[in-house]
């Protein structure tokens, strides 16, 4: 192992955990790596000065209240699913809804009187225009009302 191989593995030696014996052996014989490890240890020790504050005394009380809410919310939302009668009723309603939807979607559209009347008027108007055009082409008198 050379110094480059060892550098990133120095992390193993920063704590008391298990370390690669090859890394340990190299550091014990290499002054540059020993110095590197020493300066990393000093940096780590410097970080000890940053202490964290004490938790608020209400932290656990607040958490317990939140957990209680969760516990109460869960049966309210999904508890009914555990009741067989309600679940069976829901399944029936869903199945009936599905069948109804299918029948509705495949049935012919209902006959709408007003729409049929408008379509008929449009057809008649097109026919009159066509007749006028034929009359004009053949020289026959137009059906249009003459202007005074």
């Amino acid at each position, binding site marked *: 192992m050379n110094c480059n191989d060892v550098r990133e593995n120095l992390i193993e030696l920063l704590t008391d955990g298990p370390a690669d014996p090859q890394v340990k052996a190299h550091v014990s014989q290499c002054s540059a790596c020993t110095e590197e490890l020493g300066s*990393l240890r000093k*940096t780590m020790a*410097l*970080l000890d000065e*940053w202490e*964290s504050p004490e*938790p608020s005394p209400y*932290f656990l009380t607040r958490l317990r209240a*939140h957990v209680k809410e969760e516990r109460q919310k869960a049966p309210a939302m999904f508890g009914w699913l555990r009741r067989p009668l309600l679940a069976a009723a829901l399944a029936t309603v869903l199945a009936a809804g599905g069948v109804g939807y299918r029948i509705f979607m495949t049935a012919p559209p209902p006959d709408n009187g007003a729409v049929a009347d408008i379509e008929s008027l449009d057809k008649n108007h097109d026919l009159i225009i066509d007749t006028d055009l034929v009359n004009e082409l053949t020289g026959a008198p137009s059906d249009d009302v003459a202007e005074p």
Partner: protein
Amino acid sequence: MPTVTGRMQGIAEMAASHVPYDSLTDAEVMLRAGTDDNAAYEYLVTKYHRPMIAFMYRMCHNQALAEDLAQEVFLRVYRSRETYAANAKFTTWLYRIATNLAVNHARDHKVERSGKVVSLDEPDEESGATMDVADPTLNVEQNILRRERLQAIKKHVMALPEKQRAAVLMHKYQGMDYREIAGVLKLSESATKSLLFRAYEVLRDRLKEFV
């Protein structure tokens, strides 16, 4: 009619339910919490709430926010109790939830954070003045130096990229080794060692005047 084996199993389960939690692994206690054993959940919260708040405090540098985020971590643990699978150490799972929450929060509030300037002369407005209270055993000059050092540490740790910061905090303050950190961050062990080494190198360079 219960069989002999069934009766024996029932007795074993009854006995197991009275085993003190501290004789079980945290993962085993969490599995119990999943069977609506509220005392098991309470045990884990009591055991981990302090280190979790400390971790969140150092991740976000705001005590009130740290406590809110820690509350959310434990609520997520509670919500996941029935689906928890003890594939890894409990703390690996716990800190993965915490790191994800803290990193997401930091990303969502990046703009707010970037506008803030750390002042060495005023009390820490985010955490209150408690952290910078003068040490009565030091003289005025030593106290000023100590305060500057502390502010520099906070500033440079906070300035690390999120993954590096989380890795350093877990390694340095939560007492986790690089293998467990690798599990939390879903990185390979060698990538985690490299991440930690780079982070400590940066801190060593930026804090060299205090070392």
